[in-house]
């Protein structure tokens, strides 16, 4: 396993070191979930976390804002703070690291959209005016028009809209790191593409650091810079997304597939064509195939 920080000089905001975790600890049903996770989240990057279901992805990200604390072996450092320290100021950590769960639309509870997004900022102790600014900014960031949506009934929205509102509720806390657990799954193609475009924009314009958990390799390829592969509670592979995806045999061993375009290019290369399989979208793959056919 290689830690591919690549001399970017970027500071790690989150660092997990040989982290372990077990559910139902101390009972006959004790189930180990993490057996050794080592990874870093660097400032300003988008890190993808992939692995089959049950590999420990959700358990891992829940250590990133202290929903789970290291209780067995290993260390979780978030903004340099040891998450096992009982005296830790957890509120500050949770404001810096926002976590969007799977099916975040299930977390909505207020009757009106605006109130739901404002809940977090108000709980933080902001004034009504400050909270209103936050809501405006967050709704804008998820591409929902404040005037049109703030007084809509939360439960009259479509699934994709509800998901955006839930994400706005987390963004309204102005986190520096946004962790999204399977946030594109279950959306239709249009909804997925929109959300991916938004995430790219937050990263590029707002400098948000993104941790993106997904089972959809096409989405991972389209968004992240680096990727970390988990298997049976261990971090087994880490590197630039293009490098990792150009090793389909290894991915298969961890129950994953590379995107189909990568599979095509890897196969072509094996058959003797001069192509580079490290592509992250169809346009790049097109260039590779075209180049080798036209020379």
């Amino acid at each position, binding site marked *: 396993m290689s830690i591919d920080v690549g001399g970017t000089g970027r500071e790690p905001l989150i660092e997990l070191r040989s982290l372990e975790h077990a559910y139902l600890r101390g009972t006959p049903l004790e*189930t180990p979930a993490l057996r050794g996770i080592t990874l870093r989240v660097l400032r300003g990057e988008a890190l993808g976390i992939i*692995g*089959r*279901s*049950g590999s420990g992805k959700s358990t891992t990200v829940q250590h990133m804002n202290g929903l789970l604390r290291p209780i067995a072996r290993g260390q979780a450092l978030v903004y340099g703070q040891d998450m096992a320290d009982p005296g830790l100021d957890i509120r500050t950590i949770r404001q810096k690291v926002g976590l969007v769960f799977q099916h975040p639309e299930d977390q909505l509870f207020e009757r009106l959209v605006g109130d739901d997004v404002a809940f977090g900022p108000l709980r933080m102790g902001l004034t009504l005016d400050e909270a209103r600014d936050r809501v405006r900014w967050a709704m804008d960031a998820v591409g929902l028009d404040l005037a049109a949506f703030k007084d809509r009934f939360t439960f009259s929205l*479509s*699934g*994709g809209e509800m998901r955006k509102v839930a994400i706005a509720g987390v963004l309204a806390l102005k986190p520096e790191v946004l962790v999204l657990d*399977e946030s594109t*799954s*279950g*959306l*239709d*193609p*249009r*909804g*997925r*593409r929109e959300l991916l475009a938004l995430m790219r924009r937050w990263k590029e314009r707002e400098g948000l650091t993104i941790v993106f958990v997904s*089972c959809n*390799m*096409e989405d991972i390829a389209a968004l992240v810079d680096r990727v970390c592969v988990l298997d049976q509670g261990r971090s087994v592979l880490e590197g630039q997304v293009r490098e990792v995806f150009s090793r389909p045999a290894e991915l298969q061993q961890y*129950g*994953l*597939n590379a*995107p*189909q*375009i990568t*599979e*095509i290019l890897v*196969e*072509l290369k094996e*058959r003797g*064509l001069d192509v580079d399989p490290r592509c992250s979208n*169809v*346009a790049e*793959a*097109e260039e590779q*195939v*075209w180049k*080798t*056919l*036209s020379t």
Partner: protein
Amino acid sequence: MADPIIRLDGVSFGYNAGSPDPHLALRDINLQIWPGDYVVIVGHNGSGKSTLAKLLNALLQPTVGDVWVEEMNTRNQRQIPAIRSTVGMVFQVPDNQIVATVVEEDVAFGPENLGVPRAEIRLRVDAALDAVGLTEKRQRPPHLLSAGEKQRVAIAGVIAMRPRVMVLDEATAYLDPQGRSQVLDVIRQLNRSGMTVVAITHFMHEAVEGNRVLVMEKSRIVLEGTPRDVFGQVERLRELQLDVPQPTDLAYRLHQRWSGFPEGLLTVPEVVEETVKLWQRMRPA
């Protein structure tokens, strides 16, 4: 040709029908599903896919028009039990349709409720678990299984009722790649052994599995045909803002650049073979 196993004649469906602002989820749908078909339905959220699925086993009745399942009209309340044992449903989130605390008891739940004799239930449960590859886990509590395994338990529960048609409403949406391919393998096997399948999905590479693809948009069926016919219409699919399978997209782009590259390719091996063939032909001998 045999009679269609399911027939929709001029079906429209409105939620809150009769109110001043009825929302028409389906408009004038005519559709025949034939025995042995593997029909894949794609389209955006809100296009009417799930409403259509629910009409197929009388979970909903049409506002206008008729749905016939083996010549039974779904409006006929007395035939609903027979319709539901002909058409089984698998939903998106398996947890919503798992009821028992042990896998094999969950699979037995359906046939028990159909009044199947005990010995026969045992046989059906064993066969269903075998079909989805979960025989080893028959004594396990379902909530400790992976998502893919849970979805296969849900499918086994439907198989054990021996329906002729299985309707899957985004049954792979929340599964990992391996879970997805396991579920797809099971569906493919069932279809080969004669089960009629209707599957709704957002994953275009899954749509390639069927013998027919229906594209829904704004409450109507807007494209219909074999996967090759439908995915050949890349421009039209783009207009609808739908995804095109990556191999198809790649072949289409190359065809745009040079008409000698074949379009309408659907799978990874097809694109690889065609590319290699062209490359060998163009190489100086």
